[in-house]
């Protein structure tokens, strides 16, 4: 199996400038994280707000620079602080954001949204760009006739399909998905998760999947990395992690996640009944 992306001891510091009577300080948002993702596999990064998971995602997606450590994409070390990534490198990693209402330009037609990455990064002629964009629309489950529509004409789930289609236009090997289904309703979430699975199989994509939702992670991940306050508190295969979480923070997360277990409901209902009988 070939490793698509590898991080070694990735660090990210944010400098907060000082003010009157206040010294400047440095916040370490990501405190030395190592990971690797193979072709066709999914690494899920789980954590709560402030855990540094989105910062890490942005570093992997070559949007933000790291303050230390080594990032390798397809074996090649890359540091965007020192050198702008090549078009070829940019094409390999693409990102999908959480809020499909914010990530699409309201004044841009869907067709243009999809063709823009090709226009900027390749020399493909216009007719071919259009053909590929229409083909990709169909791949993500939208009719090719939607080419000339504007984002406001689509629902949240459809918009997220468009954002995924845009990310795939350059035939990347790695997709960084930052909470891609958190803004969606349950029934739409299921459709988008299915789509992501199909696309991963078809294009042999590697996913870095950022999420706070453990049930989604259990469904989609091969490996899981649990982050808390910038540190990787636990890392391992999905089976291992879900069968026997080791770190107290991971256990706390599991305990806090509401589940729809029938036995648990039965127990709770019985307890409430007993309590009511006692007070009545």
């Amino acid at each position, binding site marked *: 199996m070939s490793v698509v992306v590898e991080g070694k001891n990735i660090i990210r510091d944010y400098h907060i400038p000082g003010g009157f009577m206040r010294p400047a300080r440095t916040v370490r948002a990501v405190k030395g994280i190592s990971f690797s993702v193979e072709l066709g596999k999914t690494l899920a990064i789980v954590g709560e707000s402030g855990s540094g998971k989105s910062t890490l995602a942005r570093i992997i997606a070559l949007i933000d620079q790291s303050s230390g450590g080594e990032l390798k994409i397809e074996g090649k070390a890359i540091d965007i602080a020192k050198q702008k990534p090549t078009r070829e490198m940019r094409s390999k990693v693409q990102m999908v954001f959480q809020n499909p209402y914010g990530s699409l330009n309201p004044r841009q037609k869907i067709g243009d949204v999809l063709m823009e990455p090709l226009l900027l990064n390749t020399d493909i002629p216009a007719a071919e760009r259009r053909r590929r964009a229409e083909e990709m629309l169909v791949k993500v489950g939208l009719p090719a006739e939607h080419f000339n529509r504007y984002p406001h004409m689509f629902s949240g789930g459809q918009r997220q399909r468009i954002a995924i289609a845009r990310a795939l236009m350059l035939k990347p090997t790695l997709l960084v998905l930052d909470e891609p289904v958190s803004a969606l309703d349950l029934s739409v979430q299921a459709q988008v998760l*299915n789509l992501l699975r199909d696309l991963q199989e078809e294009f042999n994509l590697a996913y870095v999947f950022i999420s706070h939702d453990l049930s989604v992670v259990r469904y989609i991940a091969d490996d899981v990395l649990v982050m808390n306050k910038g540190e990787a508190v636990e890392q391992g295969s999905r089976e291992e992690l879900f069968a026997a979480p080791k770190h107290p923070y991971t256990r706390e997360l599991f305990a806090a996640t509401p589940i729809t277990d029938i036995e648990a409901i039965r127990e709770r209902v019985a307890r409430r009944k007993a309590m009511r009988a006692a007070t009545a």
Partner: protein
Amino acid sequence: MALLTIRNLTVRFATSTGSFTAVDGVDVRVDKGEVLAIVGESGSGKSVSMLAAMGLLPDTAVVTADEMTFDGKDLLRMSPKERRQIIGREITMIFQEPIASLNPSFTTGYQIEEVLRYNAGLSKKAARARALELFKQVGIPDPEEKLKAYPHQMSGGQCQRVMIAMAIATNPRLLIADEPTTALDVTIQKQILDLLMELQEKTGMGLILITHDMGVVAETADRVQVQYKGKKMEEADVLSLFEAPKHPYTRALLSALPENATGDRLPTVASFLEGEVK
């Protein structure tokens, strides 16, 4: 022992392209000391039906109902003055975005004391003492200091605790919580849900919990009402709903939960697709 009874509630909004029906003939009933969960996806009218009961909808909304009573009192035909004696005192509400629900220009202490003075009729001094007591009750750490803090100086979970403190300040008989934990992290969500359930059990108030999260329903509700596109699909006690959901939409919702995934693919709400594919 019905506390709030709503029969055949319809809410229409006048829009530029004509009238839009957000809630279409919905019945809601919550008994004393009961936790009712209203579940639905966005656009199901779950929030709008409760805002209608509270009288908080804008003027563009046309609300009709065959019956809307609180503890036997007719909410539809009472004067605004009489209604204000109930809304905000006997029925209170908390919302999804705790930080946005508080006024950023005033301290949390000022805001809760305002509720206590106008809605509970306390003196300034008594209000201050009671505010401190309430902050302690909802588990705000360092309550004396936090009364002097502005909302932006507190976390989302703490702001929601302040909202809950304000909502229970008047000892209401019904608390409506509209997605109270959706904007919060799971560990904070658990704390807030535990707090709400503890308060409910202690005071015996009715609680309506509006949510889209089946897990939250499973861990809090006595009875559940499932809504879809402004209509009520199913109503059942929590155990029967999860054990043997009757309506296909409820079944679809439960099987779309990733934690219930059995095979490689998640079943989708195929028969209910018309909303997604236009």
